[in-house]
């Protein structure tokens, strides 16, 4: 890259005085330091994520061994399904990628001391925590949490035939409202920090892809969540004040319910106007992180950086005009199918290009098979698999037989469950030394990886075929039918056993995390020899204010790996060109 000729602009503004904590409480509890907020966000997200994980075990026990566990009845099963989905998508993945990695990585990677609005950033976490507590509270109200499915489709979500239609659904909606308020405070921070607080020399096209991914995902979330916010509030009105936003006149439990004019399909449009970008809110940070981790551990410049950036932006833009591919069989105007199938398949092009570029980054690289790298490869496998099955479901008429079957469950778990979670693991193994100064135990890391990767593939790959058979999703039990062969029960039992094994591997992971913080091997500074700014701080791990007395100045892009004219195989972004050791030029 011709980065050496870049002229570094002078600072436009003097530095803003950083907030300094005066007490233990303001330093570690009501902290305004993005790194502490990131850990708070991540810890809370992982804890509630573990609840989601346990719910999935209960669900799988029922599916794998029906009529065995008397403590699981149909309404409890539906409650597990609902809360598992909602927790994993919103309270774990969104919170962890944006609140966790966003807070930790953005200021460090763009060369800022902190987020630009630290106080709002702190509030963001505490409101998120409140939303989690409200969600947890719904387990303890009479009737329990809502069992309407994570999509919360009305009228079912608020009518009496659905579990949790008393208090559960109200708390669910209130919790979402708080989550969105909290997220907005954080989200504005992430976007403005990227736009306004970058180090001198850090042009947008020099930012690491991690920052690009989180930045564009944040913008998507800021536009998408309001749709969910209004939908939640309107449904609360329908539930509490008997309004008719989503409820037409219905005949329920032997009675005509005198509402008029509401449209259940309207809710679905609002939900998926949020819900589809939500997929990319989770995926784009994962795309960014995986690009950086692959590049670092393959010791090779990311292939096609500019195209990678434009692909992120293109995917982000397109993600707002594909939402109704979740609604091909919803009863919406069938002609929408033509439009949404076309836009949906177009989005496959930039997405495929990203995938090609990751594999091409491996081409002629010098690949360290570290644990973070293993997770990245596993991500590519599962994301490719999930992307391919997305081409089935996105293609309107192919969707018809597969919609609402286990094929859909397998698809979205592969593409937005397993794949992003693998990136989260890659990121944790990659950045754990930065955050703690310790290395994670490698043997436990290898064990965790192989069991999780092979296990997850064995869980979800065969599950698609249950969908081809026609097994519907969200079924407490399939029972006797004319079309499901008895062998499907064996497959279900196998899947459940694999789920429990993979679950055990996560216990090993948590144990590894906790013990390594205290007794892990001490990490050297910049153990992966990475170029990005977060590894170039004056203290290691980075302290309050991130960069000591002087903010870094950026001279080159984030992927200077293996450049032939340099002595070292990597050059950090902030090393002055005069200080880079060059090979003597051969005459």
């Amino acid at each position, binding site marked *: 890259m011709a980065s050496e000729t870049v002229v570094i602009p002078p600072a436009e503004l003097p530095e803003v005085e950083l907030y300094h904590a005066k007490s233990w409480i303001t330093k570690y509890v009501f902290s305004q330091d993005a790194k502490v907020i990131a850990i708070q966000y991540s810890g809370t997200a992982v804890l509630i994520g573990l609840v989601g994980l346990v719910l999935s075990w209960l669900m799988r026990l029922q599916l794998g061994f029906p009529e065995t566990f008397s403590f699981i009845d149909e309404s409890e099963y539906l409650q597990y399904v609902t809360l598992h989905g909602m927790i994993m998508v919103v309270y774990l993945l969104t919170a962890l990628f944006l609140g966790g990695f966003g807070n930790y990585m953005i200021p460090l990677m763009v060369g800022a001391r902190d987020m630009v609005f630290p106080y709002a950033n702190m509030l963001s976490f505490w409101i998120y925590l409140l939303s989690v507590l409200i969600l947890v509270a719904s387990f303890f109200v009479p009737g329990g949490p809502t069992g309407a499915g994570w999509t919360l489709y009305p009228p079912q979500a608020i009518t009496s035939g659905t579990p949790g239609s008393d208090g559960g659904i109200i708390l669910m909606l209130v919790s979402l409202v708080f989550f969105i308020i909290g997220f907005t405070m954080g989200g504005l921070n992430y976007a403005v920090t990227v736009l306004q607080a970058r180090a001198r020399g850090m042009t947008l096209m020099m930012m690491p892809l991690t920052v690009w991914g989180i930045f564009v995902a944040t913008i998507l979330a800021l536009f998408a969540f309001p749709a969910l916010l209004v939908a939640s509030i309107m449904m609360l009105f329908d539930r509490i004040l008997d309004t008719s936003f989503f409820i037409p006149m219905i005949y329920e439990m032997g009675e005509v319910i005198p509402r008029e004019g509401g449209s259940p399909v309207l809710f679905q449009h609002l939900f998926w106007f949020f819900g589809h970008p939500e997929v990319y809110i989770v995926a784009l940070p994962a795309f960014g992180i995986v690009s950086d981790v692959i590049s670092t551990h393959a010791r090779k410049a990311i292939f096609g950086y500019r195209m990678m950036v434009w692909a992120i932006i293109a995917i982000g833009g397109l993600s707002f005009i594909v939402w109704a591919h979740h609604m091909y069989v919803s009863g919406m105007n069938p002609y929408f199918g033509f439009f949404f199938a076309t836009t949906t398949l177009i989005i496959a092009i930039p997405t495929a290009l990203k995938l090609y570029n990751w594999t091409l980054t491996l081409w002629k690289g010098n690949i360290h098979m570290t644990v973070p790298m*293993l997770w990245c490869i596993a991500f590519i496998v599962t994301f*490719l698999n999930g992307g391919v099955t997305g081409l089935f479901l996105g293609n309107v008429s192919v969707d018809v037989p597969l919609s609402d079957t286990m094929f859909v469950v397998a698809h979205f778990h592969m593409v937005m469950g397993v794949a992003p979670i693998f990136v989260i693991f890659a990121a944790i193994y990659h950045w754990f030394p930065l955050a703690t100064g310790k290395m994670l135990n490698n043997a436990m890391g290898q064990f965790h990886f192989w069991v999780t990767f092979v296990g997850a593939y064995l869980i979800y790959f065969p599950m698609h075929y249950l969908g081809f058979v026609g097994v519907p999703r969200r079924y407490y039990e399939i029972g006797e039918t004319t079309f499901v062969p008895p062998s499907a029960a064996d497959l279900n039992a196998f899947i459940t056993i694999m789920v429990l094994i993979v679950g055990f591997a996560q216990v090993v992971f948590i144990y590894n995390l906790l013990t390594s913080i205290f007794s892990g091997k001490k990490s050297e500074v910049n153990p992966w020899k990475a170029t990005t700014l977060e590894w170039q701080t004056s203290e290691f791990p980075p302290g309050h204010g991130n960069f000591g007395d002087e903010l870094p100045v950026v001279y080159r892009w984030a992927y200077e790996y293996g450049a032939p004219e340099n002595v070292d195989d990597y050059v950090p972004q902030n090393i002055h060109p005069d200080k880079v050791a060059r090979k003597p030029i051969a005459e």
Partner: protein
Amino acid sequence: MLMAVVLVLIVVGSVAFHLVSPWWSTPIASNWGSIDTTIDITFWITGVVYVVVLLFMAYCLYRFRYNPQRRSEYQPENHKLELWLSGLTALGVVGLLTPGLIVWNDYITPPDEATEIEVVAKQWEWGFRLPGKDGVLGTTNIRFMNDENPFGINPDDPAGQDDLLIDDDLHLQTDKPIKFLLRAFDVLHNFYVPQFRAKMDMVPGMITYIWLTPNRADTFDILCAELCGIGHSSMRGIVVVENVADYEQWLKEQITFSQSMAGLNKKIKSEVKLVSRIQDKQALFSVHD
């Protein structure tokens, strides 16, 4: 190295599983073979990409594994290659989308000669209505619904009087196209017969439709494919596809709307009074809570 081997195993294992697993589309019983064909096309195009990308990656992991003596090649971009790859992908997308949209056009365009049959769903049971001798379904409204009139048929509409009401198994005759009009009374449901391939949500407040031609005589399950509350998984029905003679025989045994009203009238009048008294009481309670 290990990872490269595992990737090859994944490719071989996935393809082998696809070829030999006992779990595959249940034999079709309608005209929607074209949907199955688009699935096959999609499998071929995406399957090739899946195999090629994974094998390429396995090769890279093996060939370019870490060697301290070596340096990776510095090649930040190759615009031409990226354009080629995007172009090929676009070509694949066109190959998928074209059959997809053609079949969708058929799917949403019922033939004129299709017979209309209404399917109604409520928590957690199915009902069916046939147009009767006049070939026209009577108009309906939720307002008319009660125990006597479970379909909410307009009692003043002459077209509705001869409608056949079926609360048991639905029978269809082979090779006659049918347009199903789908109606839900309470929450979302979805009319789903796996062997027919077609499916569509049933939405309170509107009438949706699908069309198909059953072409194989047999007995099939009807399932609800859209989550509809605690009875969702047990909301089953049966559809029997049979030849004309059997179908005509079955048709004769069904009762019309006016017959059912006449038969029910005497029995139900007393019950209605009781029900309305209970409802009054409930209204009283709900005012107080």
